[in-house]
């Protein structure tokens, strides 16, 4: 589509369409509303469903119902909406229902500031559901990322049969920038594996994999339940069956860590410092390290696109060669705790800011130089 002037939210909608999304439901909330608005422009003309629920709880229910009927579903909201989604996120996790959830983050807590960005929900997205099952969270840093990561998000959700989050931010979602989506390298589209054969058991799967899928309403009867269930989809209290299922839900995500890891890096020769960041902050980090390089101080950067499951192997490997690891976040320290689990604390420098403003390259340079 050549060069265009586009906000991240539109790029997400375009990514969803490219991924084959054919169902959207949502409830308006700044700064996520324009994902909905863009889906409205694109989905119904392709015969897709794009509707407004009476609240987030309903909208999320529509998406889950649609996904169970075989659709590729998307919803978009901000922190307050994620709060309302919580119970259904747990349902989608436990009952292995694919869908993509966009969180265009705003500054919290609560209503917070509708028009101020922050990476408020980085821990919330992982832990805002019951039982502590790992989830997949991807963080775009610009409009092009919004496009590409949305396709990855759909692919992951289909492959692993789970909800996948996109942790965007008001600053990316609602800022227009020049972007040429044609330059994007999109992964091949993945669709959930359909069951073939007789004797369908809705949750029978390989140990660290998602079960093959059959839609509600087809020729084979499908059972779905939010209750603890065995491979047959019936309620169970058998400890062995329960344990195996819990383990599988965990393993199918954690053991896929490497295939789920997406990142960008700039490795500068002779650098002894690496800056780790994600989201919109990565752009300021890139600017500041560019400037530092020009003034003779080489500093490398690692921008994480996959936040959950934590790409521990990547972080371990990429930080090995550096004396100092600087972590910059648009909150008061959420992801640093994950990095601390992998990198010795003595090497870590952290700067976090949550005041409604973007972190400036000047501030980042100061932290890198004096931190």
């Amino acid at each position, binding site marked *: 589509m050549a060069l265009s002037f586009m906000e991240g939210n539109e790029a997400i909608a375009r990514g969803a369409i490219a991924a084959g999304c054919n169902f959207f439901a949502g409830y308006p909330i700044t700064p996520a509303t324009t994902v909905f608005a863009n889906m409205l422009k694109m989905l119904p003309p392709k015969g897709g469903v794009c509707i407004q629920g009476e609240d987030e709880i309903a909208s999320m229910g529509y998406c889950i119902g649609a996904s169970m009927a075989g659709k590729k579903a998307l919803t978009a909201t901000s922190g307050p909406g994620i709060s309302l989604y919580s119970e259904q996120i747990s349902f989608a996790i436990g009952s292995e229902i694919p869908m993509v959830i966009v969180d265009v983050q705003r500054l919290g807590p609560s209503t917070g500031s509708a028009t101020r960005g922050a990476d408020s929900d980085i821990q919330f997205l992982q832990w805002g559901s019951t039982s502590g099952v790992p989830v997949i969270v991807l963080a775009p840093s610009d409009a092009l990322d919004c496009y590409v990561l949305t396709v990855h998000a759909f692919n992951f959700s289909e492959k692993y049969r789970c909800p996948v989050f996109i942790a965007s931010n008001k600053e990316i979602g609602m800022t227009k920038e020049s972007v040429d989506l044609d330059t994007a390298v999109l992964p091949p589209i993945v669709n959930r594996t359909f069951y073939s054969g007789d004797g369908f058991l809705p949750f029978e799967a390989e140990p660290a994999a998602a079960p093959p899928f059959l839609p509600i309403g087809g020729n084979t009867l*499908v059972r779905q339940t939010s209750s603890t269930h065995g491979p047959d989809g019936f309620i169970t209290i058998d400890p062995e069956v329960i344990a195996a299922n819990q383990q599988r839900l965990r393993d199918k995500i954690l053991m896929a860590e490497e295939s789920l890891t997406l990142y960008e890096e700039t490795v500068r020769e002779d650098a002894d410092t690496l800056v780790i960041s994600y989201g919109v902050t990565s752009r300021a980090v890139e600017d500041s390290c560019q400037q530092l390089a020009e003034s003779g101080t080489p500093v490398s950067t690692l921008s994480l696109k996959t936040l959950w499951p934590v790409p521990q192997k990547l972080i371990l490997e990429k930080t090995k060669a550096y004396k100092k690891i600087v972590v910059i976040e648009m909150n008061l320290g959420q992801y640093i705790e994950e990095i601390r689990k992998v990198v010795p604390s003595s090497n870590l420098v952290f700067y976090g800011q949550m005041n409604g403003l973007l972190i400036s390259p000047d501030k980042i340079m100061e932290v890198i130089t004096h931190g």
Partner: protein
Amino acid sequence: MSKKNYDVTGYIRQRFFPQMWCPGCGHGTVLGSLLRAVKELDLDKNEIVMTSGIGCSSRISGYVDFHSLHTIHGRALAFATGVKLSKPSLTAIVPMGDGDALAIGGNHFIHAARRNIDITAIVMNNRIYGMTGGQFSPLSGPGKRATTAPYSTIDRNFDVVDLSVSAGATFVARSTVYHPQESIDLIKRAIRHKGFSVVEILSQCPTHFGRKNKVGGAVEMLEYYKQRTVKIGSKKLEKDPTLIQRGIFVDNSEVPEYCDAYDLVIEKAMKGKR
């Protein structure tokens, strides 16, 4: 009726019987009526998707051999809406408890009615929270005893029929578990109706409501439904207007059904390219 007509074993998952409801619970009678209605309509199992929330009543979805979604408390109508919008040809049936439908799920209930989406909601009204141990529901009404109302309730109750009518449901009916033949007929009509249908079936919870309110066991509670309910417009109402009416209160096929209406939206958006 012949025995054959009442053989509904093909519609149930026999390995889960006997069911989990307490002795004397009315919910099994509702299941019986529902199965017979489906049988009499000669519906194919694959065409039916039963979506339920959480509660004793919601457990129905575990006993029927249809496509079944046993979801979360109060939200069944939302999931059913998503399924229905995706596959409008399916017959969507949602059995609900009174708490599930009108406390936690009240918002979804009125909006589903307002939209007139083709779903049949069967509200199994036992005026109490059965599953969690006898807390009051929005249908208990004032002056009742419940686990959470040891000094008796002060909350007024909804009237399921009035609420459904006001919210715009296009088929609204009421029966009781004392009247299973009538229930079968009403459920059949509700399923056949294209639009949002509500069938309230007064059910009994002798374990909680009955015991706490000293209204006797299942037999006395059924007797109450026999004595205290009448067909719509019955002469008995002149003498006693507090009698509960049974029958069809609304049956309106003029209002566009939501999936049909949405189809027109898509047609417009596609500018006739479909």
